[in-house]
């Protein structure tokens, strides 16, 4: 992480691996695989359930493999009016929030981590406080506020309240603190302005943390139900979770088949996102400070 420890190779424990005997490694693989089976079971059940008729999903005792596999749930889901629109809305809202969080939270995080300024402690204290206030508390006042701003039933109303999050600032600040001051100092001595330092030095170095924040933000927004529900006055602004609840949850019954097909539809993009970002995400905070 610093200029002195330049050759951080793979890991802390990696060296020991080379001395590890084959049986030990086998045990490790076996244990990890067993863990995965247990971990993935509910996940697999969700995917398998999405191709079962509803009767089979709730059947007791439950079975793993579909007795009469069917794509009816997906067909029903895709045949719903405006389904593409709901998908697009979800994507738009989630991506906008990701963009906002990445940019604004890293800007603020940079200021908190690397600049001494008047009011910093007060502001950061406020961020920490807000970090821990549960959403349910502020829900009604927030809605009244956004509605009075004339933003109900608009994309802005869906996005603005989540464009920055205290969590994003907290995380970015923690991560940017890890970047050695010497890098910032060197840039400053070269006469670079703060904006330039931020864009050219800081941002490239916090790719892993940006990936982390991107996934967390995307996950939260992609699954957000209550806010899009109350803020949209017409279906045009529904997001996927709202539409899925509309289709599958009745006053006295639940259409589990449709629900699971919907769940699969919702989860797949996140899995893809994680696959795409995990390299950045995990690969190297180690790489952050050394180049």
């Amino acid at each position, binding site marked *: 992480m610093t200029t002195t420890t330049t050759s951080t190779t793979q890991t802390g424990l990696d060296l020991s691996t080379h001395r590890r005997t084959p049986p030990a490694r086998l045990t490790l693989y076996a244990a990890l695989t067993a863990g995965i089976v247990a971990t993935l079971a509910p996940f697999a059940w969700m995917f398998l359930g999405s191709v079962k008729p*509803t009767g089979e999903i709730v059947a007791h005792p439950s079975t793993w493999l579909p007795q009469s596999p069917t794509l009816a749930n997906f067909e029903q889901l895709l045949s719903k009016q405006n389904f593409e629109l709901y998908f697009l809305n979800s994507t738009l809202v989630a991506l906008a929030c990701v963009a906002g969080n990445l940019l604004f939270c890293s800007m603020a995080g940079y200021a908190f981590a690397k600049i001494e300024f008047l009011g910093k402690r007060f502001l950061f204290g406020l961020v920490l406080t807000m970090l821990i206030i549960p959403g349910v508390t502020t829900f009604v006042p927030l*809605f009244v506020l956004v509605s*009075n701003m004339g933003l*109900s039933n608009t994309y802005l109303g869906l996005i603005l309240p989540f464009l920055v999050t205290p969590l994003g600032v907290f995380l970015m600040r923690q991560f940017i*603190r890890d970047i050695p001051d010497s890098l910032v100092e060197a840039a400053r001595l070269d006469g670079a302005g703060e904006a330039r330092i931020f864009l050219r030095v800081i941002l490239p170095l916090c790719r892993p943390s940006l990936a982390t924040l991107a996934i967390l933000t995307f996950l939260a927004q992609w699954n957000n139900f209550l806010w899009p529900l109350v803020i949209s*006055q017409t279906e045009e602004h529904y997001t996927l979770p709202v539409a899925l609840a*509309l289709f599958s949850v009745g*006053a006295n*019954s639940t259409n589990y088949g449709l629900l699971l097909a919907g769940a699969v539809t919702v989860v797949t993009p996140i899995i893809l996102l994680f696959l795409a970002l995990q390299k950045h995400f995990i690969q190297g905070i180690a790489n952050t400070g050394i180049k």
Partner: protein
Amino acid sequence: MYGLAHPHHDVLKKRSRIHQVERDWTTMFTSKIAKTLVGGLTAALVLTGCGRTDAKQGQTDKGPPIDTSRASGDITVWAMGTEGELLPKLAARFEKANPEAKVRVTAVPWQDYGKKVETAIASGDTPDATLVGTADLAAFATTGGLEQVPPKLVDDSIFYRGAVKSTAFEGATYGVPWYVETRSLFYRKDMARAAGVSAPKTWDEYRPFLKALQRQGAKWGLSLPTGAAQSWQSVLPFMWQAGARLVNKDGGKFTFDTPEALKGLQFYRSFIASKTTSPNGPMSLGEIEPKFVAGSTAALISGPWEQGLLKSAGGQSFVDDKVGVAPLPTGPKSNTSYIGGGHWAVFKDAKNREGAWKFIRWMARPDSQKAWYDLSGDLPAVQSAWTEGKLATDASMAVFRAQLKTAQPGPNTTTWKQVTAEMDAEIEKVAKGVSSPESALRRLQAKASTIGTGNRR
């Protein structure tokens, strides 16, 4: 900060990152929260300057009567779930009769729709009208966000009595019934046939009937909820059937501590005590149907929608050959069941109240009600809509129809939802055997009295 050059600050700077965070926390702790609290208190103190005005809202909720001319303009409405998906088809007929009017339906999920309605009312940002679950009407009317039904809009006597009852709140009417549902007894008629028993007509016949089904191999005779949310909807009818009333005449006081209510709760308990009913009832929707299909549970109490659920769990032939529907057995006083369904309500902040009420009036016409049943399968709230088609001829429809005549809603009080949560909790204690029915009711009465009905009268 401004003191960075200060030596003391240099020392601090050298400390660990974590310490820095911790220091921020300490600061926040000693000052931020305190400041925020003080600020909040001040704000609240300022608020109290306004104080509560104890004006009765009743009078101001009433709008002028609605004339009989055609509706015009945009009418925006919310409807939930399937109802919301199908309503545009019904509305198209209304638009044909009222070419100047355009009904814009937004389909809203049932899940958390109450939050949507309440936040909309709080902000004044509402549509013109909304569908409301019968049990939620009082909670919405409480906020002052609903308009009273204009005088003479519809004739109340055309609806089932229980449906009309649940539109009333604090002596005024806030909704127009649209569709209804009630609960009757679903049982495995193949098992009953094999056991040589027929559906019970009275409380006395209830348990022997179920025991006979259990002897046919069912682990449990009757499924009843045992504390899951909405358990009260299944237990309340036992109390009514024993003759209990749960609020006093003017609706100002809960009366759970009566011998009749106790008799009802004891009867509920007797199913569990005799191992006719599992002490661990269904926790979630969809849990009971497979057990009923498998024959491990021989009977359940449910509404008209149950036939659809059983069809998807067991197939049409299962429904045709093995499912019987019978009226609830009669207790010491009656066989009263619970009535639910949907009402229409108009918001005070409606932009087109006239159009909205005209649409609602139109939907309460027998032919519109019939058309809606054909579209959705929702049972008409208007009695005269039941005179033809499947509604008039089908055997299970006849059961629901008879049940609807006497079915009752829960008390329409502001705090009912809170009281029912307490009731669910007490039901759970009785079901699990950790409390006697007597002490459960005593506690429930005490809690309900503390909560109060919240009604301003």
